[in-house]
């Protein structure tokens, strides 16, 4: 009956995306080995990319795969291998008594609150946005053009600010991860 109301293809796409997202997310928090968690994270990110494509956010789906699955998870794996922390964490030890129960209650309240808010609010009215003057969201190449136009006109200042943010992040990461040199080395460098 669900497939009758909505196109079978979109229901199947949603089911696939939901399965990938939820199995991957549970894998991230349940697996003991950090490497396995990182691989589970890739599964979730692919599921989110499928959900993006299904909702005509084609450019973001590509960026999701390239930046998240391609760069961020590789960065995670690189640090895991670099530090050699791919040992199993003792997930069954509970240093704070009742931590898990409180966390479960907190997560349940969060999810329940969000779902109740969604069910009772009237945010999704179906009204067209005024900023796009009723132009429908495009898919494919037109989506890239639409998003590019928005970023380079309406959100230009924010876009420029991200450039500064990325430079600061790179400098900060180099500064943090750099090996401390001895005082003698630094003196020599200053003299030179």
């Amino acid at each position, binding site marked *: 009956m669900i497939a009758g109301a909505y196109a079978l293809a979109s229901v199947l796409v949603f089911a696939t995306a939901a399965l990938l997202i939820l199995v991957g997310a*549970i894998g991230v928090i349940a697996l003991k080995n950090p490497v396995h968690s990182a691989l589970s994270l890739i599964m979730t990110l692919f599921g989110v990319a499928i959900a993006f494509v299904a909702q005509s956010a084609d450019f973001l789906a590509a960026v999701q795969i390239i930046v998240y699955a391609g760069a961020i998870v590789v960065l995670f794996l690189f640090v895991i291998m670099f*530090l050699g922390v791919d040992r199993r*964490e003792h997930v069954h030890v509970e*240093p704070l008594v009742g931590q898990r129960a409180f*966390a479960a209650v*907190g997560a349940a309240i969060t999810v329940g609150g969000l779902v109740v808010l969604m069910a009772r609010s009237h945010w999704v009215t179906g009204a067209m946005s005024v900023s796009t003057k009723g132009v429908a969201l495009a898919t494919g190449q037109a*989506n890239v053009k639409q998003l590019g136009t928005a970023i380079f006109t309406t959100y230009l200042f924010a876009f420029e600010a991200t450039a500064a943010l990325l430079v600061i992040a790179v400098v900060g*990461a180099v500064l943090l991860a750099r090996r401390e040199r001895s005082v003698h080395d630094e003196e020599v460098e200053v003299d030179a």
Partner: protein
Amino acid sequence: MNVPAAWYLILAAVLFGIGSFGLLTRRSALIMFMCIELMLNAVNLTFVTFSRTLSDVGGQASVFFVMVVAAAEVTVGLGIVVAVFRRRSSTSVDELSELKG
């Protein structure tokens, strides 16, 4: 016809809940970062869903900026993890309790 927006919103809420549960229970700093990524992705999914529902590309632009900030956050965060690991030989956040009152 596409599936209703509420399905994707509930999926995003559940993903956010799983991420927050993992953040509260796991003690390896690396896994906690991955849980933050899960929560950020849940928010991104919500943005894209509302973007589709309201036919406004602004939601997708927000996701773009969230991705940039997430990349910067992971870079600095992993730098901090590496710096902490050099001193403590562990990424467990339980061992970083020297500021405890």
